């Protein structure tokens, strides 16, 4: 993605030798991308900021283990994804509680009288999608978002999450199944309205 990978390796070497300016270079070079990934996964600006911070702290702590077999950006991305997963797990209880309220709202949204002007609005479907995504387990949500938005294969997702490719595929299947169960009627109606 960036022409600075060779430069990254130099910076890693210098940072390992105690050069804080070199680590600063890595932080400045990768923050934007890590923020985007963190936001995709957490869906919250504040949580994404926390993930960025934690990811760089962990990277600093584990810098001596970076062996250069993958690109530094890939290695850092993996750390950030796992930080986001940890945060999602920590917040799981809160999210679960909120999900009950969201589900109720979602069901009400789906069961309302069909109103073509309203159902055709993609923003409403988008809002429902976000609610369903929040209700997924951290593994399902992360695997699905890495697959759907970042285009990672099952094998890549498995490597990032430290699980087998089959397990990452199953996590995506479960996520899609839940999306279908929750959104099916809504999307079909929206489809009929826009085509009818």
């Amino acid at each position, binding site marked *: 993605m960036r022409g600075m990978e060779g430069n990254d390796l130099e910076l890693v070497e210098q940072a*390992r030798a105690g050069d*804080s300016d070199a*680590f*600063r270079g890595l*932080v*400045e*070079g*990768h*923050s*934007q991308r890590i*923020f*985007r990934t963190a*936001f*995709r996964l957490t*869906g919250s*600006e504040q949580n994404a900021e926390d993930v*960025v*911070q934690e990811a*760089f*702290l*962990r990277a*600093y*702590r*584990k810098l*001596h*283990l970076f062996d250069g077999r993958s690109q530094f950006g890939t290695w850092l991305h993996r750390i950030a994804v*796992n930080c986001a*997963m*940890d945060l999602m*797990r*920590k917040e*799981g209880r809160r999210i679960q509680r909120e999900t009950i309220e969201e589900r109720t709202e979602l069901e009400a949204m789906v069961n309302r009288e069909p109103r073509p002007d309203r159902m055709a609005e*993609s923003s409403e*479907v*988008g809002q429902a*999608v*976000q609610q369903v*995504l929040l209700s997924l387990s951290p593994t399902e949500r992360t695997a699905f978002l890495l*697959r*759907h*938005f970042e285009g990672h*294969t*099952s094998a890549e997702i498995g490597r990032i*999450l*430290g699980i087998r490719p089959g397990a990452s*595929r199953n996590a*995506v*299947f479960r996520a*899609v*199944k839940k*999306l*279908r169960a929750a*959104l*099916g009627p809504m*999307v*079909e109606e*929206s*489809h009929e309205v826009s085509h009818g």
Partner: protein
Amino acid sequence: MKSVTDEHLILYYYGEASDAEELGRRIEASAELQRRFEALRGILDSVEEPEIPERHPSYGSAVWHRLAPQLEQRRSRRWDWELLRPRREWALVAATLLLVVGAFLAGRLWPRQQVELAAVGYDGQERILLLTVAKHLEKSEMLLVELANTRDNGEFDISAERQLAGQLRSDSRLYRQAAKQSGQADVAALLEQLERLLVELANGPEIIPSSDLGDLRVLLDEGDLLFKVRVVGSRLREEGRGLKNPTSEERFALDV
């Protein structure tokens, strides 16, 4: 492929079906499959990426300014994972080790036996070996203490610790074999006990529940492993310090 499942269709949607061409033909030929695939596509196409808030071009610099004080704090701790960093010089020590560790264990640490080593540089080699084994035990102790002292709810990423355990396991095996060959059952037993734990860590998952760390603490307490590692490590260090100073090359190799 006998029947086309929803999982097949999901993989096809994402371009990951192993038999995509055949599946494509079957979908094209079957109204039922077309209906199912279109329904799936409708759902997945509706999952659009939310708008990601823009960050200022100087965002990276802002992140650094928030991060820097925490890194400084980390550097000032008494010890850090950096201490455990595998060193290139280790290869030099390991090569020497393979040749003389058996004789070293047999001839110096325990009652002397009939061991003949070249007179030149023998003390230097011994010193390296004693301090290297001591350092190995120290690194292992740090790893175990770090894990045992981790207090975290939920699951915990130990990928870095796992990798380190793999490296230490290989070293530990070498020492254990040497101790066994020289008939020193107590040291071999300690290294075997340590190795079992390192193998568990190295072969275990990268993400583990905090309850597993609780199990580790129990294991460490029950076996008095940390205590034994400290005692033996301390004894080896003392033995090493009692010998002739190493040459500058030896000192460089061991980084002491």
